[in-house]
Every structure is written in C-alpha cells, then in structure tokens.
C-alpha cells in the first residue's frame, strides 16, 4: 500500500510549547517484505542513505589500500613492488574511487539522503523510487568500475581525468577503459537523479514555518550542491559518450587526425571537474556548519552570510574550469585566474563565520568538534595553496608536480575529516547508539597528524620538481627522504581508519544508547527518535527560528530574531549562557 498523507491532528506537548501530533500520517507502520527482499525493495530514504554510506566507506577503504601501495612503491627511488602498468592502474583507480565513488556519494548520496528529509521535516525524499534507482545505479556503477581489475589488460590506467588522446583506443586499448567509461555513466546518472530528488525534497516537502532562510545550513548546502550536480554531471556524461564513440565507433571528436580537438575533452571534463570539486566540498562545509554551533553552544554566526557565501562559491566554481588547463596555452588566462582568485572571498567569509561562531562560545571538544577544527586547519592549507595555484606564473612552475598533488590532497583530506565529523555527529541519530569518544579522539589525532606528515613533504618535493604519476625516480635519489616521511604519514592515516572500524565494532557489541538528542543540538532531526521511525516524525515542534529543536527544549532561552539572527538586545552572553 502507498501511504497517503492526511491532515495532522492538533495536540499539546508536555515539556514546552505546543507540539502537533502528526503520527496519523508520518508514523505509519512499515509494511512490506522483510530480510534481503526488504533491502532490495526499500524506498525508505534512511535505508538507502545507510546503504550509500556503507558502500562508499568500503570503497574508500579499498581506495585507501591502493594509496598505501602507491606510497610503498615511492618509498625508495627504484622500487619494483609493482610494475609500471600496475602503478598506472593503481593511481587511476585510487583517484577514481575516491573522487567519484567515495567523497561525492558519501555526502550527497549517503548523508544528504539520510539527513535532509529529517532536517526539513519530511516523511521521505520527494521521489522515493527514483532514490532507490539512484542507489542501484551507484552500486552497479561501482561494481562495473571494480570489474576492470578482473579483465585482460587490467583496469583503466590513463589517470582519473582520462585525458585524450591517451584515453583513445590506440593508446589505451582493452576493456578496462571501456568499463571505466560505462561505470562513470552509471554513477553520473545516479548523481543526477539524486540531485533532482534533493531539489524536489527541499522545494516541496518542508514543514510549515520552515522558510528557506530557516533551513539548516547543511540543507542549504545540499540544495546548492544538487543544483551544481545538475549543471556539471550531464556534461561529463556527454563527454564520456563521445569518448566511447571515439574508442569504438570511429568518430574523431577528440583526435586531431580526424579534425577533432583533444583540448575539447579537457574543456568538457573540467567544466564538470571543477564544479565537482565543490560538489564534494559544499556538503562538508555544511556538516561543519552544523557541528560548530552545537559544540560552541551558540547559534551560527552570520547565517545569511553563510548562505550567500555558499551560493557565490557555487556560481564562481562553474566559471573557473580552465584553471586546470593553464599550460595548454589555449585558454584565457586573465578570465580564469580572476574568477579562481575570487573564490577565496566567499570561502574567507565562511572561515570568518566559523571562527565567529566559536568566538566566546562554550566550546565542547567532542570528537565531532575536533574533526571539524581539523577540517578548518587542513582546508586552510589546501585553500591557500589553491590561491597560489590560481596565479598562472606559479601554476606554470608547479603544474603536474607533487605540489599540486599535495594541494588537492590537503583539500580532500580536510573533507575526509569533515566526513568523520559527520559520522561521529550523526551516528547516534542513525543507529541510536554512541560511538566511543576516547577511541574517536585517538582516531582524530592519528588522522590529523598523519595527514600533515603525509602531505607537507609532498609540497616540498613538488617544489623540488618531482612530477606526479611516476613510479620511480632513479635519477634524483635526493627526493627519497621526503617521500619516506610521506609514506610514514600515509600509514598513520591508514591506522586511523582501523580505529574507526574498532569503534563501530564496539558500538555494535557493547551499545551505549544515545537517546533522541545526545548533543543538545539545534536542528529538526534531533527532535525525532534515534533512529527515526518509518516516515520520520510522530510530532513536529513549532518552527519559529532556524533552531526549532533548541527552541523547544529551552523555552526560557532568549529567542532568535524572526529573521534568524540573534536579536540585538539579547546580547551574546545571554545566548551563550542559556545552556
């Protein structure tokens, strides 16, 4: 049976202001198959979200193992741990798995799927069956990608960017490349469907009173991410179809011999690729913007500034694609350099607001908060070197060196820390159980120290001229020391994820129950039970600010201004002292 939404019933809460019983329509008992068939047929956003999270974390662990093999290979100048061909496959698949199959799907497939309907007070995503289809396309796309290792000729080995003419049928023959293309077409459609679903959910299924400027920043960021997905992914899919035609059907879209242009591939790929960087980053900006106010016991500082910064980052990010192509010599350097440099302004506003939120707050250093602070520091390194690389003279000098590798790994490792922050923050909501804080802190320090030990030497070795994607550096053995330090760092990062696995195992064997709102958090998802019931809510609180759950649990706390900012007469101390 489908669940038809009928009018809610009025009622009065016991604790504070009136709440409204909505059990009649949100709290339907789940009915349908059980066991494996339940998983295969589920259209519940929570089940799909958890499937996404688990699948993407498994793929991250696989991609991480590839990285460790790469670092072992580079630990000595002429190591023969893997062959050159295997090395090419490893760095290609490491990049592909992490970018396409972990960071993105973890955020907009997993966390957003689980959290956004809860944060807007919706019973499910707008199109539940489309949502399920997204997950199946993602899962089969991931399987198609991993199949590359099983076929003759091995997996794709032309780098995660698949540059023409290296990726054509002459230079990269074999099934591996075809499977890479087909996998990305599947996961691309999966992302597009999820984007449509998120926009539909946020536009149409918000609870009454939850205006756009009362939405949690995480939901705002997911809306902007969804729009970016709709801008970027169709371009990638089209580019991949044309690449496949070049490989098999005799077209010459990317080959000079037939009148095509290899730079067209770079234009198309990076028109997708740079928004993709922000498709990866914006959800994690949203996660830390949820966590920092909760653990600083303050409302987020500069709510509207955060929203407009997100919108401007997204808009600018779509006009900067050719800063990856400065050295091709056929792009408009001033245009792309200027727009790239401009991105630092809204990002700076975000940093200012994050620090402003913590300023004079009662900071509680939980694991989630530590991970969020680790994100701020590491992302700052990645961001500042990004500003440097946006300048063409520096880019010409450092292009395709380990300096660039270190830059984007600082960025994505910051995102991984934010992902861990999100796991520690929302795990109690998803499972009803806490993760252990002591193990969490061990994981944080291993991850944070490991990241800096791994990637700081890469900045230096890049400035010394070490190119990326080389398996041996026999002619310049002086690079070995820095590479060895980097390898040690990589294994520290690896160890930190073992701690996460142990922590999850502990919560499974020795559960510590979390309760509905273990962090005394602000947003709507903490109002319902942990884990939430089928169709999410049996009650809804009145929504009068961007912190409905906080308002409900702290009726005597100074009210926020109706427009979502602290009322000028309240004073910061009163807001802070209310806990």
């Amino acid at each position, binding site marked *: 049976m*489908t*669940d*038809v*939404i*009928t*009018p*809610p019933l009025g009622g009065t809460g016991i604790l504070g202001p009136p709440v*409204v019983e*909505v059990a009649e329509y949100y709290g339907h008992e*789940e*009915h*349908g198959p059980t066991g494996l068939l*339940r998983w*295969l*047929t*589920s*259209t*519940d956003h929570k089940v799909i979200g958890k499937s996404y999270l688990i699948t993407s974390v498994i793929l991250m662990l696989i991609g991480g193992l590839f990285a460790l093999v790469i670092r072992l290979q580079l630990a000595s100048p002429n190591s023969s741990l893997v062959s050159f061909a295997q090395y090419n496959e490893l760095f290609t698949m490491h990049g592909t798995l992490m970018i396409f199959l972990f960071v993105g799907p973890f955020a907009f497939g997993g966390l957003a799927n689980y959290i956004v309907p809860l944060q807007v007070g919706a*019973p*499910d995503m707008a199109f*539940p*069956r489309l949502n*399920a*289809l997204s*997950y*199946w*396309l993602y899962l*089969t796309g991931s399987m*198609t990608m991993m199949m590359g290792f099983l076929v003759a000729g091995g997996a794709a080995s032309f780098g995660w960017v698949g540059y023409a003419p290296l990726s054509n049928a002459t230079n990269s023959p074999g099934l591996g490349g*075809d499977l890479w293309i*087909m996998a990305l*077409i*599947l996961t691309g459609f999966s992302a597009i469907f999820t984007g449509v679903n998120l926009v539909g959910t946020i536009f*149409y*299924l918000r*609870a*009454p*009173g939850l*205006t*756009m400027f*009362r939405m949690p920043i995480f939901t705002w960021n997911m*809306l902007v991410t969804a*729009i970016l997905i709709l*801008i970027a992914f169709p*371009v990638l899919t089209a580019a991949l179809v044309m690449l496949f035609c070049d490989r098999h059907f005799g077209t010459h879209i990317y080959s000079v011999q037939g009148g095509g242009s290899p730079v*067209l591939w770079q*234009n198309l790929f990076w*028109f997708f690729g740079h928004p993709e960087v922000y498709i990866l980053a914006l959800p994690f900006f949203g996660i830390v913007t949820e966590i920092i106010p909760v653990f600083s016991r303050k409302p987020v500082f500069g709510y509207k500034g955060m929203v407009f910064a997100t*919108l401007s980052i997204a*808009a600018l990010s*779509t*006009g900067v*694609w050719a800063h990856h192509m400065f050295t091709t010599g056929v*792009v*408009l350097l001033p*245009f792309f350099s200027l*727009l790239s440099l401009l991105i630092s302004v809204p990002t700076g506003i975000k940093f200012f607001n994050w620090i402003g939120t913590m300023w004079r707050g009662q900071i509680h250093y939980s694991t989630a908060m530590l991970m969020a602070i680790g994100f701020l520091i590491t992302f700052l390194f990645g961001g500042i070197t990004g500003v440097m690389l946006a300048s063409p003279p520096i880019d010409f000098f450092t292009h395709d060196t380990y300096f660039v590798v270190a830059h984007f790994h600082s960025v994505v490792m910051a995102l991984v820390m934010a992902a861990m922050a999100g796991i520690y923050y929302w795990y109690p909501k998803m499972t009803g159980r806490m993760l252990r804080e002591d193990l969490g802190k061990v994981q944080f320090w291993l991850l944070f120290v490991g990241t800096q030990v791994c990637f700081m030497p890469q900045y230096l070795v890049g400035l010394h001229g070490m190119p990326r994607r080389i398996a041996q550096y026999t002619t310049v053995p002086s690079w070995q020391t820095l590479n060895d330090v980097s390898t040690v760092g990589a294994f520290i990062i690896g160890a930190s994820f073992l701690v996460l696995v142990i922590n999850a195992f502990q919560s499974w064997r020795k559960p510590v129950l979390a309760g509905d709102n273990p962090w005394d958090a602000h947003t709507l998802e903490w109002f319902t039970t942990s884990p939430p019931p089928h*169709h999410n809510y049996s009650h*809804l609180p*009145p929504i009068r600010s961007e912190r409905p759950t906080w308002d409900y649990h702290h009726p005597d706390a100074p009210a926020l201004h109706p427009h979502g900012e602290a009322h000028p007469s309240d004073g910061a101390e009163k807001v802070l002292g209310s806990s």
Partner: protein
Amino acid sequence: MKIEALVLLGVAVFFGIVGAVYWFTSYEDGGTMMLVGTCLLGLLPGSYYLWWHRRMGDRPEDRSDATVEDGAGQVATFPNSSIWPFVLGMGAFSLVLAFAFGIWFFFPALALMITALIGVTAESRRGGHV
C-alpha cells in the same frame, strides 16, 4: 516559492553575464555553449517557479508564522516498497555491460528495463506496491 525561484533565476543571470563576458573575451565556442546551457538550466525552472508563486502565493512553508495545522491536507503519496527500481537498475547495469562485453547483454537489459517500466507504471496506476 519566491526564494526558490530567485535562486534559480540568480543562476540564469550570473551565467548569462559570465557567458557573454567569456564569449567576447575568448571567442571559444565550447565553453560559451556550456555557460549558455547553464544559464538556461536556471532560467527555465526559475521562471516556472516564479509563475507558480504568482498564481498560488505563499505556501505554509514559505510563511514564517505558519503552524503545523496550516500544512493540513494531503502532502504527498509515498510508495512503501517497490522492487522495480532494483529491476531497472539491473537493466541499466546489463545495458552498460553490453557496450563493454558484447551485444548479447542487450537482451536481458531490454527485458529487464521494459519489465521495470511497465511494473513501475502499473504500480503507480494501482496506487499500491507489489
């Protein structure tokens, strides 16, 4: 609906301007086409939402003083469980494998996808799940 529409129309305006600047400074056709496409991606749904906003005014979720009772009425219909997304996904999987491994994969792909499309349509018409 108004802010939703303005967000999308903002996309259209921004990429309209950037697209024009880009064309007249670089005369590069690939990038210009993509920027114009992005402009249209904001323009079409944005103007549609603005039109709906003019027609129906503020919904309860657009008003800052709305109560939960104001949202009374049928919100949406949600399928409880359905096998067809899985079947359609497996069909798409077979379809891409056909491009990689051989034409014979087309037959299960087409069978699965047509079955799933019929199934999902029938399911919606009946208003139930299978």
